[in-house]
């Protein structure tokens, strides 16, 4: 690592490209799996025309969106209208810079970390950056100069701001237990504790995930895009690539929420119950399973639950959603925070 250029630019650049490509591919194929799994849940077949068993469908969709006409409403606020999709997709992708997909490992004699960076305020960084994403939604809705978009944007903003509070509170319980804001350290703390945080923090875990569903505007909290009321909500007027950005951001955000849940509550890249089953995981037959595989597996489980929700629940009404956030989740997560704090004080953290 003598050459500073390599350490400073080349390696991060490669990582950025790999992570971005992976995220975009996951997001694209997430839409495919969503349609397939939902189809099977509803006793249908799902997309099966493009490529073998429909596997190239996301590629076709992406191409279609690329070449589609880009419509800008005549009375839209042009610049803000353009800014909306950018503001929503940039934070969604930026967050991946601090998510640890696995522990450091050796490659050709170099130590490689399968994440872009490990900042000591990792989780705050994520919360901060993703809170910027709401601008894309609210501005896009406003700039379209369309009542349905506007209403969708405002609904979404209210929903995001409301659910950020219980979500943050449930994250804090993990911070209390791990005694760190760094995502890598949080995973390592779970290794040391020998227990994943979803066991002591079961309430926080539940609240986090439900809030995550609300934060990503997914069923049953997909009110901002409730088609029967608001056509397509805040992105009603968007088409072509701009629409694709919103689409990408939605799926990327699902991956983000699932990744964070994996890191905070399910021990990140750790194999299940590392302390109790240490002997099992040391078996040569199993030792080849790379930590990243565990991470991806856990994340995929969360993504599956997202789709499962969509196949199972009707949509809430806006006031019901707000009631749930303010009158149930915030008090419960506050009480839970105090309980966990007390527990940490009495039993000791880490």
């Amino acid at each position, binding site marked *: 690592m003598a050459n500073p250029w390599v350490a400073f630019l080349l390696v991060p650049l490669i990582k950025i490209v790999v992570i971005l490509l992976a995220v975009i591919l996951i997001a694209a194929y997430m839409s495919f799996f969503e349609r397939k799994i939902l189809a099977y849940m509803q006793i249908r077949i799902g997309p099966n025309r493009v490529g073998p068993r429909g596997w190239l469908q996301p590629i076709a969709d992406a191409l279609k969106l690329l070449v589609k006409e880009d419509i800008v409403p005549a009375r839209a606020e042009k610049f803000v209208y353009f800014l909306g999709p950018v503001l929503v997709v940039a934070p969604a992708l930026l967050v991946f810079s601090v998510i640890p997909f696995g522990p450091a490992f050796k490659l050709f004699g170099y130590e490689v970390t399968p994440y872009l960076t490990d900042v000591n305020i990792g989780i705050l960084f994520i919360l901060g950056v993703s809170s910027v994403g709401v601008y894309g939604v609210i501005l896009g809705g406003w700039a379209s100069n369309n009542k349905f978009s506007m209403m969708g944007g405002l609904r979404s903003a209210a929903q995001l701001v409301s659910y950020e509070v219980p979500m943050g509170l449930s994250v804090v319980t993990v911070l209390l237990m791990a005694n760190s804001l760094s995502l890598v350290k949080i995973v390592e703390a779970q290794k040391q504790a020998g227990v994943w945080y979803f066991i002591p923090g079961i309430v926080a875990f539940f609240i986090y995930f439900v809030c995550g569903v609300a934060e990503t505007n997914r069923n049953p909290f997909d009110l901002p895009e409730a088609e029967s009321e608001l056509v397509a909500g805040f992105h009603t007027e968007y088409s072509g690539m701009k629409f694709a950005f919103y689409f990408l951001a939605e799926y990327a955000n699902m991956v983000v929420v699932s990744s964070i849940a994996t890191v905070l509550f399910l021990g990140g890249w750790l194999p299940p119950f590392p302390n109790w089953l240490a002997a099992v995981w040391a078996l040569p037959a199993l030792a080849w399973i790379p930590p990243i595989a565990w991470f991806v597996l856990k994340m995929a489980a969360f993504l599956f639950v997202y789709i499962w929700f969509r196949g199972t629940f*009707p949509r809430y009404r806006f006031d019901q959603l707000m009631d749930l956030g303010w009158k149930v989740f915030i008090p419960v997560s506050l009480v839970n925070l105090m309980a966990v704090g007390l527990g940490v004080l009495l039993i000791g953290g880490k």
Partner: protein
Amino acid sequence: MASVLGVAAQVNEAVARKIGAGLRAASQGPPDTLRLVVAPEELRSATEELLRLRARFLITVGIDARPLSADYRVLYLFSLDGEHLFVVLECAVSPDDPHVDSIAALVPGANWAERECRDAVGVTPDGHPDPRRLLLADDWPEGLFPLRRDFPYDYRPPAAEGVAPVPKQPPEGASVLPIGPFFPVLEEPSYWRLFVEGETVVGCDYRGFYNHRGIEKLGESTLTYNEIPYLAERICGICGFIHSTAYCQAVEKAAGIEVPRRARYIRSIMLELERVHSHLLWLGIAGHILGFDTVLMQTWRMREPVMWLAEEISGNRKTYGMNTIGGLRRDLPATVVAKVLKVVDEVERESVAVRDAIVGDTTLLARTKNVGVLTGDWARQVCVVGPPARGSGVPIDARLDHPYAAYDEVPPRLCTQQAGDTWARVLVRVEELLDSIRQVREGLARLPAGEVLAEVKDEIPRDRIGISVVEAPRGEAVHFVMTGGDNRPYRWRVRAPTYPNLQAMPAMIDHAAIADVPITLGSLDPCFSCTERVEAIDVSTHSRRVYSRQELLAMSRELTLRGGRR
């Protein structure tokens, strides 16, 4: 039948007592129809008397009778449900000054009917609370009335210049949220302007009738008695058999034709099969409106075998082409009976599963309980029919009130709920779905042998009237026929169930959240193609913000000239 005659005599007597010499004539056409000719100035008193007898308003029929008696006739159709009797109040209106007193203040449900009568025949209701156009386009020229006899069915008048829609003004401080002209959920043309304060609806305005196809006019001018059933079953995209049955029954009643027992049973069975697939379709749409697409996919999958069954029986999924005056054109093949039983068994098994799933779903309950409440009293006043009425505790069902087909021998169960909310309407429909399956089974078990078509030897006599009601999945469909010469009706009037039901909508969404509007409308199971069948008008949509109507029209013409290239 004796009791019906007795009741008719009582009604006749009561009206005579009330308006005295205002009652000019009374006659009984078909045994279940009492026809009272009243003086126009006594119309309101006569209506009051009928309402006191708990009569339910059905529809208004305007007839251009100038070739017959040099006047217009306006007929007000009422039903005395418990007594199985129809009462017709008939007014003769002078052609020089065609006016009649409005009864909309007494019967809120007559609001649209009177406006339609004015638009189509040109008899103006005096004192109407909302005298805007209902079914004619805004650019239809003044003084042209398409259902008058001297208006050719294929005439296309030039568009009037400089006209604009007359929207209702929102209350102070409310803003207008347009839903439509193409409703995003039901994918049908209906234009609601919701007046909202925040997310709360404080009022609304409706403009519909964008899709008139001139069906009544065609029936009166170019088609013959036996051709009309094929047109009638195209009134609706779902329940076609209902309309062709209703039409045939109206003619059969007017002409006194006795339909063979077997044909009546088969009609019943087909009608109930139609209810089964229609209610399944509705359940799916309701689920879709609530963002619950799994219900949509499941119920529509369950519905499919019923459609296949219809195809196997009639050759078509939807337009069966089975009905004709006097019975059926096609018998139910004996081979299909076992298959029908198998399919309905399967549908029943799965419907019970769906019912159990949705009844236990708390989110669904939260989205439908106390949503879109229609009180029983208001439901009666706006003359709501079908599941919305029964969901509000109004015990009406055309199959019981005016038994037709084989319902006198295989009666349905009356499924009512008291709450009047969307949930109640869900429950009513699910119950009816299961009851329809029971009726199909019973009907097949008791299916008599014999002919399915009564031969009609004589010409159908002129100037007879027949009223027939059929309980469609959405409610009661009313067909009125006045017979004429040239082997065709002089007047054919259709009232689809959505017509009265839609008029209840403003009260149901008052002070509701916007999010509840689609499911409230959806819970009426509205069918716009049924409702809008009267006139052949092309209306382009209005986007009043940016383009004027003329600009849009010019743009679309330009596009056509360029061969559709942008």
